[in-house]
């Protein structure tokens, strides 16, 4: 027992002396717990759930119900409602369905609600709407659909009855309609209690309590929401196609960061002493490392997608050229990240530890694990600063939206730009650091 205690003491002493390990043991779980907690609403004002999902609303009708539902949706924190956009002269103009469809095709918008001209018709008691969606993320789309139904079903009855009251008044005349309402109110007051004046006022404003709001079976027959998928309709295996990019990028970051830390092993083995005494300089070593890791990353990603093709039916052939381009850009950025870690870390252990922490954080914040809209808004703003976010964007653009090379250019430019900046810093650090000493 004494021996075991001595050895336990030794293990704890070694652990305490390993500063990086010690920091990461507590830092990684704390950061991840915070991210997960934020996603599921722990400690967040107003609870969990998504926030700031862009929802475009196009109203092709002047029916009051359109404005009522739009107002209700504006109050829902999950949505950031837009109804207008600036024209060439900089004047705000109401959105049109064509504009919204174009925005969805260009992946700047994923959800839109259209109130068509026949949203509320004289021939039919009820509402008609069109919900356009680009389900690049299944969880987000299901959540948005649910929230839309909840909000519409909660606000539509009042709007419907207000409309009905208006139409009744128009049809039989205001005086007759008021008299009719008064008689009904008296009857209700006598039968169920309450003040006839209050009941009459509520009826006028469409305030009716059904006991349970949004009774599905009843409202389903009244509110028709026609759902239309815009984009991704051709995708054979939506679930796998959506998620493959994020996971692939995360694993790529792990493997290439590990590869980059081989710089430390080679230093320890004295390899650089031999290489630098030969007709080889530091730039040769760094570029050979960088380019070989990019090649390895490219092969790794391509292999992963080919496996995805055979295992899950992910369509990689339709847009294969662009898939290769985005794989190359993602690999370039991931290797730059790995080299950067090696450049700023004093030891392999620090680089590995720091890499684990940053990769997990980037994957979570970048949206590889859950939809960005589920995170607090400040985290959503951080997403575009991660490689994972842009790599995922690229993969979705290629595999889901079938984008052309021209459409892919901004994403490619960001990834190659990240690689160029990070790599320049790394080379500068390497040349002045002690990795070659």
């Amino acid at each position, binding site marked *: 027992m004494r021996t075991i205690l001595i050895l336990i003491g030794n293990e704890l002493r070694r652990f305490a002396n390993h500063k990086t390990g010690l920091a990461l043991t507590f830092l990684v779980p704390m950061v991840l717990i915070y991210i997960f907690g934020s996603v599921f609403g722990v400690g967040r004002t107003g609870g969990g759930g998504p926030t700031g999902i862009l929802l475009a609303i196009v109203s092709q009708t002047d029916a009051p119900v359109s404005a009522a539902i739009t107002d209700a949706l504006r109050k829902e924190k999950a949505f950031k409602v837009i109804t207008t956009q600036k024209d060439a002269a900089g004047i705000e103009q109401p959105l049109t369905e064509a504009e919204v469809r174009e925005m969805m095709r260009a992946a700047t918008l994923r959800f839109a609600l259209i109130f068509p001209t026949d949203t509320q018709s004289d021939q039919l008691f009820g509402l008609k709407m069109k919900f356009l969606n680009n389900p690049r993320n299944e969880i987000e789309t299901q959540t948005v659909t649910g929230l839309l139904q909840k909000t519409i079903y909660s606000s539509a009855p009042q709007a419907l009855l207000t409309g009905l009251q208006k139409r009744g008044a128009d049809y039989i005349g205001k005086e007759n309609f008021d008299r009719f309402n008064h008689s009904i109110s008296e009857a209700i007051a006598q039968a169920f209690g309450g003040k006839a004046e209050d009941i009459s006022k509520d009826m006028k404003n469409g305030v009716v309590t059904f006991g349970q709001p949004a009774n599905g079976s009843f409202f389903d027959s009244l509110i028709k929401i026609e759902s239309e998928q815009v984009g991704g309709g051709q995708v054979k295996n939506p679930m796998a196609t959506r998620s493959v990019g994020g996971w692939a990028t995360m694993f790529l970051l792990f493997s290439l960061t590990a590869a980059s830390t081989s710089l430390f092993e080679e230093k*320890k*083995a*004295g*390899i*650089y*002493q*031999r*290489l*630098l*005494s*030969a*007709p*080889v*300089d530091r730039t040769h070593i760094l570029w050979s490392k960088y380019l070989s890791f990019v090649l390895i990353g490219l092969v790794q990603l391509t292999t992963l997608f080919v496996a995805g093709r055979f295992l899950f039916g992910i369509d990689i052939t339709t847009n294969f050229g662009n898939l290769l381009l985005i794989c190359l850009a993602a690999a370039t950025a991931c290797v730059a990240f790995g080299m950067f870690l090696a450049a700023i870390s004093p030891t392999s252990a620090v680089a590995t530890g720091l890499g684990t922490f940053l990769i997990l954080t980037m994957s979570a914040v970048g949206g590889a694990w859950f939809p960005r809209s589920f995170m607090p808004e400040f985290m959503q703003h951080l997403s575009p600063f991660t490689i994972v976010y842009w790599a995922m964007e690229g993969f979705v653009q290629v595999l889901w939206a079938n984008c052309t090379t021209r459409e892919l250019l901004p994403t490619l430019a960001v990834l190659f730009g990240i690689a160029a900046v990070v790599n320049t810093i790394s080379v500068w650090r390497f040349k002045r650091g002690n990795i*070659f*000493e």
Partner: protein
Amino acid sequence: MLAIENLTKHYGSIAALQGVSLSLERGEFFGLLGPNGAGKTTLMSLVAGIRPADSGEIRLNGAPFDHRRVEQRRQLGFVPQAFALYDELSGEENMRLFGRLYGLRGALLRDRVEEGLLAAQLQERRRDKVSTYSGGMKRRLNIVAAILHRPPLLLCDEPTAGVDPQSRNAIFEFVQRLNADGMTIVYSTHYMEEATRLCSRIGIIDHGKLLALGTLDELLLQLPFAEQIRIARNEETAPHLPAFARLGELVTMEDAFVLTPRADTRLSDLFGLAEKIGLANRHFQMTRPSLESVFLHLTGKTLRDA
């Protein structure tokens, strides 16, 4: 062949080399002797062009050494203290790689690799990964990988560190053969036996300064004494050490005490003392001073203590 003038190198506030100057003739076997941390590896790495000096000049064949000049790099071969081999590759693959980096190709590369494998006695294991080699095999491969391009000047930084005596002998014979074939060799070590056995000229370095330079005889001549007395280290002699210490400088070695007599001490004083305290002659041995004595004389400490 090689001229070093007033070379200085600092790592932060630590002075690794302080104004080191020396020159080597073609075909010399030069030993750089000093304890760990003396500055041997730093000097080697500056000459090999791995890192720049703070000041001073290195001239190779009369021309200032510029590590960016490929033709000058090809004049050098460097055997690092570490194995400096790719463990995941076979011995043959390692040699082919380093040969190609020096510009060898085709039949010439193939021939040089064969010669190297033969010299390192690794033909049988040529396709095995280096990670499976013994320490001695790695050491031999480490040397032959540095001479594939037949450099006129070979820098060996403690090439026998951590190998068994048998492998060490094989390495000695190998580098002696290279030297006999005309290769100039700079050999750093902290073993005086290696420097004594191999080197025609020796430089003693400590704390970044070259303390002495010359052949073994020249270095020994710098000593103010010609003989030393080894006193056996045992229970009989131990109690009387203070008495012997009055006759000169007494240093404790692993298996003996070494007495360097003062200039005015006569042998009769020593043996008179021994007789007086009843110690037999078998406990005493007259010895010729060694490199260890020179180092002790120059630094006030033994190589092992340094």
